[in-house]
């Protein structure tokens, strides 16, 4: 589904990614771990198309199609979803109406009619229940005054609504208490299928107890320095990132 080859990227003349290779197939869950500053968030931003980052070399293909020239919204229309580490507050736009707009713009791009209002409401109801989100919450301005946990739950709620092919969860566990973590992980697991893939970006192994990865990659200084199965995450937890740093 996702093929990344020799990806290099920089921000403001600083090289961050220095040759990433990653292959993700449908039905798989990949975890990308690494110490602070290793390039984890840059990788997710570049896949989603953030223009702030300049891709200097390499390829990103989604289902065999080069997406590197596409705008962020076009990537979204092709099924890429990024759950933000720091979701942005949008005052004045309610959660519900933001979702309606996002879904209908995607449908418009695919030549479909707008989603009928009753269908939209039904979907919102189902997905908000999945994430244990209070109905009142949906009429509030997007992310404005939300707690850290509420923001992350809201990110996964949006993922549930948009049903992406490829979901990248950037530090979704940060700022979550154990109950919120369970709710979020449970939501992600219910959305997992044979047809989609998930990339979990995390600093800690904790989230991976709930969202169990098929593959774990360790990112360090802009490169993937180690890949393995889920046991790699435990090894990393036990030995700490110094293990990686000392080896490289």
């Amino acid at each position, binding site marked *: 589904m996702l093929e990344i080859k020799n990806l290099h990227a920089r921000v403001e003349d600083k090289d961050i990614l220095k040759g990433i290779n990653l292959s993700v197939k449908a039905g798989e869950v990949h975890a990308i771990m690494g110490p602070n500053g290793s390039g984890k968030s840059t990788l997710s931003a570049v896949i989603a198309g953030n223009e702030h980052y300049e891709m200097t070399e390499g390829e990103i293909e989604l289902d065999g199609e080069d997406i590197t020239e596409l705008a962020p919204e076009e990537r979204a229309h092709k099924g890429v979803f990024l759950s933000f580490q720091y979701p942005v507050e949008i005052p*004045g736009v309610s959660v519900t109406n933001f979702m309606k707009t996002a879904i209908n713009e995607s449908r418009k791009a695919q030549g479909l009619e707008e989603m009928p209002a009753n269908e939209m409401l039904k979907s919102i109801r189902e997905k908000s229940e999945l994430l244990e989100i209070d109905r009142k919450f949906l009429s509030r301005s997007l992310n404005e005054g939300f707690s850290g946990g509420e923001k992350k739950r809201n990110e996964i709620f949006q993922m549930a609504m948009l049903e992406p092919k490829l979901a990248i969860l950037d530090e979704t566990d940060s700022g979550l208490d154990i109950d919120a973590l369970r709710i979020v992980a449970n939501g992600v697991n219910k959305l997992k299928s044979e047809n989609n893939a998930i990339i979990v970006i995390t600093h800690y192994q904790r989230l991976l107890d709930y969202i169990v990865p098929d593959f774990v990659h360790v990112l360090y200084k802009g490169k993937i320095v180690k890949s393995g199965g889920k046991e790699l995450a435990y090894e990393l937890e036990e030995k700490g990132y110094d293990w990686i740093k000392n080896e490289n």
Partner: protein
Amino acid sequence: MELKEKLISSFMAFEEQIDVNTDLHDVRTSALKNFETQGFPTKKLEAWKYTSLNSVLKNDFTVFPKKESAIGFSDVKKYFLHEIDTYKIVFIDGVFSSFLSATTHDGIDACLMSSALTKPKYKLVIDEYFNKVAMADDSLTSLNTAFAREGAYINIPKNKVADKPIEIMYFSTGSEAALMVQPRNLIIVNENANVQIIERHQSLSGNPVLTNSVTEIFAKKRAIVDFYKIQNDNDEASLVDNTYISQKEMSTVKVHTFSFGGNITRNNLNFYHKGEHIDSTLKGITILDGKQHVDHHTLVQHATPNCESHQNYKGIFSDKSTGVFNGKIYVEKEAQKTDAFQQNNNILIGDKATINAKPQLEIFADDVKCSHGCTVGQLDDRALFYMQSRGIPKKEATALLMYAFSNEVIESIKIPELKQRINSIIARKLGVNMGFDL
């Protein structure tokens, strides 16, 4: 001939058409004298520092409206709030159009200034109210007063609620190469009465138009007035809008100004308090592009205790457009317990747009609550990327952010169909096809 000389010399011709043996004529002559002394305002005046009329005044304006040009309703239907029934007072090139209007004398008066100024039965009202709140020493107001003849006259009697909104429409057809019009509106809302008014100036051609409008509003005890100004004219139409509002105790007056178009637009919006427990609201949304220019000068004169005023102006400026917000709150010594609030938020798109914002508070009472806030910012790139990453294209995301920014003002529109109309004007202005159903 320069426009000033042209106007002064045409006054004699004007006198031939009116009754000169009246008190009103004395008012006119002294007003003309005042204009003659002061002339058109220039950038040397502090109040006109950022707005120059020079480029507009160069035009060879026709200052006397000729007879009515015909317009079919279907040509201009879209400018009316046609989804609902309204009273309509319509002028074409400064002349009343009975064909397009729907006036009334049934319970309320929604009709013509020209009849009010000439018919004996209105004499008492005119004596009591005409030119009584308008600033007599203001040059452009004086110019309007000198030639005041046509406009809307609205009088809502005590305890009456106007059963439908009143639309005041000024169309210019382009039948003159360049046209100057000077509408004069007088609105009296008596004790415990209630009215909603929508005013719009619309040029139907690309010929230059200059409108110098004066509106006087008198809100008596417990009266409620909602006034909406729609300024979405084409790039050759300039407007100076002088609105003066006198409020008696416990009255509520709200003025919304929606500025989306026009060449040079100057809004002088002045509130004067004449009683306790008055509530005044001034709100505006300005969305400009190209070389458009809008200047909002507001004044709230708190002269009496226990009154409130609320100002909230939002501005979005792109390309080379320029905006001015000069908001003055004056609290007199007697006006204890005043609660005055002023907010002005602006977004600049690109690096060529300009906003000049100046809050001005002059407070002479010692027990008051006055606050003001002014911001100038840009659209948040992080918010745009966030929205794009969820599939909302950049243009739509930008529009949604701008709409959300303005929403505080939009949501206080009381007429749902008008709110819808403003929404669609904004969508068109921002080049998107969205409902903004927030």
